[in-house]
């Protein structure tokens, strides 16, 4: 438990000792927000890591080949991810439920095996060396982005677009009969999710001296889904909380040494069985329910 002890008694050394972890929590929060957007619109997509890979590789390639700074790389990466989303989305978005999830998973893996592992420009199986990596400087943009995006998406869910998405999620046919352009709205959610994921990828790549294809495989895609479901999918803060908690969990469980992974799985199992609606839901944050808690529908 000295994880928490140190966090509260000596934040400065906690920060310096866990920079990489804190950065990862931020990146995973961004990914969680990305999947939240699509889930909110009623789509179960697992393409986040594929778009993340596009953002990461684009940013790194621009950095090492054209010496463009992170800001340019991040924008280019997320735009390219959005383009990919547009191309994939057209045929795929008419699928529903788990089929959409599997199709997007299939896209991610096909992209990884077909493209990333085999093109010289992506370094083939070895990935790319990111000589411009900067761990210290990378954390701040990540967390600023998390805060800003959380707020923006929250506003979005309260807007007319957000209400349209919620309506589509409940009942697509009814929503269409109300005059909502379901196809366009679906694509909008998918694109927004891709933009955020691509952006997250670029920031994540900046933190590491290497980008390689194994980081963007199915286990990570499923992991992002777990952040969202464990955190709670009704409210944008849910996936963020889920991401922060689950990313930190292995480190919190450090004392469990050899059995860390087993305990990790056990905690996951227990949370989902006893609180299937997620940690953050209409009832509040697990056991706390502050007075200002917005009574969003979950």
């Amino acid at each position, binding site marked *: 438990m000295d994880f928490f002890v140190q966090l509260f008694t000596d934040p400065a050394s906690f920060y310096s000792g866990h920079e990489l972890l804190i950065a990862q929590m931020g990146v995973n929060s961004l990914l969680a927000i990305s999947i939240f957007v699509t889930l909110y619109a009623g789509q*179960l997509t697992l393409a986040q890591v594929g778009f993340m890979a596009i953002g990461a590789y684009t940013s790194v390639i621009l950095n090492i080949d054209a010496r463009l700074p992170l800001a340019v790389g991040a924008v280019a990466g997320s735009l390219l991810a959005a383009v990919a989303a547009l191309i994939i989305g057209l045929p795929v978005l008419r699928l529903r*439920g788990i089929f959409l999830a599997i199709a997007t998973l*299939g896209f991610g*893996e*096909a992209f990884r095996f077909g493209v990333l592992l085999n093109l010289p420009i992506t370094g083939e199986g070895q990935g790319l060396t990111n000589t411009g990596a900067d761990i210290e400087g990378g954390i701040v943009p990540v967390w600023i982005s998390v805060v800003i995006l959380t707020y923006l998406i929250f506003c979005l869910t309260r807007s007319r677009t957000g209400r349209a998405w919620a309506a589509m999620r409940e009942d697509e046919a009814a929503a269409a009969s109300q005059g909502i352009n379901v196809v366009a709205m679906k694509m909008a959610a998918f694109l927004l999710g891709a933009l955020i994921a691509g952006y997250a990828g670029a920031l994540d790549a900046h933190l590491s001296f290497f980008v390689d294809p194994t980081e963007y495989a199915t286990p990570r895609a499923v992991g992002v*889904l777990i952040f969202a479901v464990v955190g709670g999918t009704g409210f944008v803060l849910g996936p963020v909380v889920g991401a922060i908690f689950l990313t930190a969990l292995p480190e919190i469980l450090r004392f469990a040494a050899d059995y860390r*992974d087993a305990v990790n*799985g056990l905690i996951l*199992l227990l949370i989902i069985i006893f609180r299937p609606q997620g940690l953050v839901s209409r009832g509040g944050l697990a056991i706390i329910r502050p007075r200002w808690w917005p009574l969003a529908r979950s």
Partner: protein
Amino acid sequence: MGQQLLNAIFLGSIYALFAVGYTLVFGVLDVLNLAHSAVFMLGAVVAYSIVGLHGGPFWLGMLAALTVSAGMGLVIEFVALRPLRRRGAPPLSALIATIGLALIIVALIEQSHAGGWLGWLWQDGANPVRFPPGSVPNPILHVAGLIIPGDDIAIGIVTVALMLILGWIVRATSVGRALRAVAENQRASRLMGIDVDRLFALTLVGSSALAGLAGVLFGLALSDIDPYIGRDQVELRGLAIIVLGGMGSVTGAVVGGYLLAIIEVAVIVAGYTNLRAGVAFAALFLMLVLRPQGLFGSRVQERL
């Protein structure tokens, strides 16, 4: 060329065995059971434990593997699925509960060493092992210049036999009818007097036993048993196959398994060895876009 065709058939059998269990649970119960791969691995581990660690005969190892796997099916139902059904939880949570269970199982085996509390079951931690040579009869046939290990033939026979038996069960028995009813509409089935809970348990037991069987045969034929078989590649292939073949269709899972294997081997023979894994997913993606119900599936389910 002929040898590669044999490879494809053999590979297809393994894929098919794995996928059949998967498709039963998904097609009938609407649950994607991601603990399936952990049970697959556990089957191999148990069989190795009997044969490799304790020197028992292979048939005993196989029996133990089937029993333990079937038991795991009950564990999955009672620990992960039933509590969520009782709470009326969203279907996605069942998926994640099975993931949690799988993590625990793999982690426990991974950490198990000689002298540990699970040391009687598995002593090799993360290391891959194989059945001791000679512990399993494996005559090698030489036919027309091709080399056919007897194990591979056995696997092919088992797969086809299972497909026929399962197909018959689903079509012609009352259990099969109940399964189809539940697959159609759970609530209606319950109202009609079908004990849905019992059916869940039954389906999970059957599917997990199949997973365990596939695991033993896999470990035997590929000389590779470790805590990680089943994860990643095999699991994802299983997913691709049930989509290709059609959710809930046993025939589809088997045909899909062989079809995928043939496509993959063809890609390798054509020289694109590093694209093999991508093929499965490209095929998956295309099938979903062009024909979501797969080759033999009958309905497209809508479920979030």
